[in-house]
């Protein structure tokens, strides 16, 4: 059930690569079909993005490569520093909320950001190399994250790692093996276990099924859906795949050339798309 207050509100998220000039914003975007400023050459990865994520909901961001959707998720996870924008958190975790009340967490020190990340967020990247240390055991990867979230007892951490790996259908017998030996789908499942280990309030999924073959993709999606329901975690799903968006999300934002061109209920976006780009996207889908 949605309740009225979002756990995360972002306004005017903006990221540019280059010096920037007065014309950058008005000369780029979907109306021009480009995200590079013709005056100064700056690339506008994304600009003016507003979004709100409510408890337990699954919000989708869809768009083609280069539309800025991964930049948005990485700014929310503090992997990329935003050039402009405001992110407010109201997570329901009292300790975190007291620290961040009415503040723009984008302005926090890197230490402060890390604390927030460890307390309330989990992320799964398209590329498992970004989310996992490939040479440390699967169990060790999860334990490392638990350590950052304040866990200290080795036995407890090991127990929790095993539980999470079991939940994400990674054979526990392989928990002491390094993920570099695992298949792509298995690496993704270890990443999911790691992302969920600190019981995040917000789960960020960045193209998690891209590059996996269809049957593995299906298993990963089923797993995410099951865990999402079980754990009631609010989730932001970034994907270029309308099938993934249809399957997982209730609301969707459509991005193009670094801007949000349309946002709505997912079935409305798919059945009655308003923006020319969304219409093209929906009519291009294979099914």
């Amino acid at each position, binding site marked *: *059930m*949605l309740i009225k207050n979002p756990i995360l509100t972002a306004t005017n998220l903006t990221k540019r690569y280059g010096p920037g000039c007065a014309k950058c914003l008005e000369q780029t975007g979907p109306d021009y079909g480009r995200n590079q400023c013709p005056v100064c050459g700056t690339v506008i990865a994304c600009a003016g993005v507003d979004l709100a994520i*409510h408890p337990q909901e699954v919000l989708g961001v869809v768009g083609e490569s280069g539309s800025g959707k991964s930049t948005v998720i990485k700014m929310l996870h503090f992997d990329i520093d935003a050039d402009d924008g405001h992110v407010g958190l109201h997570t329901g975790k009292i300790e975190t909320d007291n620290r961040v009340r009415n503040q723009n967490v984008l302005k926090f020190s890197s230490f402060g950001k890390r604390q927030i990340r460890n307390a309330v967020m989990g992320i799964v990247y398209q590329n498992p190399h970004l989310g996992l240390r490939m040479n440390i055991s699967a169990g060790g990867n999860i334990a490392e994250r638990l350590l950052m979230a304040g866990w200290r007892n080795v036995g407890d951490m090991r127990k929790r790692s095993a539980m999470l790996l079991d939940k994400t259908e990674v054979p526990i017998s392989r928990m002491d093996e390094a993920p570099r030996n695992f298949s792509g789908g298995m690496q993704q499942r270890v990443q999911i276990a790691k992302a969920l280990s600190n019981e995040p309030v917000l789960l960020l999924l960045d193209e998690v099924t891209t590059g996996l073959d269809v049957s593995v993709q299906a298993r990963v999606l089923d797993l995410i859906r099951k865990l999402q329901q079980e754990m009631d975690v609010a989730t932001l799903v970034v994907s270029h795949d309308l099938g993934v968006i249809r399957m997982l999300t209730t609301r969707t934002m459509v991005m193009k050339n670094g801007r949000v061109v349309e946002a709505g209920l997912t079935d409305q976006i798919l059945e*009655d798309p308003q923006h020319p780009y969304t219409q093209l996207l929906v009519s291009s889908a294979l099914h």
Partner: protein
Amino acid sequence: MLRVNNLSKTFTIHNLGAKEISGFRPVSFEVATGKTLALSGPSGTGKSSIIKCLYRTYLATSGSIEYTMANGETVNLVKLPDTEMVRLRQREIGYVTQFLRVLPRVSATEIVAGPLIGTGVSYDDAIQRATVLLRRLRIPDELLDAYPVTFSGGEQQRINIARAIIWKPRLLLLDEPTASLDKGSIEIVIELLNELRQQGTTMVMIFHDPDVMHALSDSIYLTQTIQEEECCECNR
């Protein structure tokens, strides 16, 4: 409970040079709490589109849909923020068509129990109620744990109907959910829907079969063919 005022829908197809297509003639109607209204009219008069506007799968172009919620507050479904609409769909407004659009690799009972889980009903209890309902709809026991993608058209429609009525929505929108059911199954569906009516569910429905329509509706609204002068394309 529901007051539709001059509702209209125009589709703008951008890759056909912003061609405009009218979805239906502007409609106005009212449905009182606990009453049922059937939309009736020739094919192509926009009955399904009207229902989709009510559910917000389509964004209405003009007009309003005033809906009085369980808490007594009246909202306009055309303008309601997305998150509020999601909440209404979870708590009050149900929608069912003849097409089963469900997640793959989920069993029949889980699909039907889905809307109950999260409303405070326990998983086991929800599954139990889904099983009872599916048996009443004469779904064979060996199919209860199977994936409905593999079911026959008629079985899929019964899964669909079960999912729509199990949580007893306040307002139920029905778009031909019995299109390919045999007579026996249709009678069971009529019985179930009439039970829901007695328990106070308001309904807006489309049924081509006049017998079904009359068995379920308190009143009928006739949709009309879009006339030439109203067709945006011809106005240019």
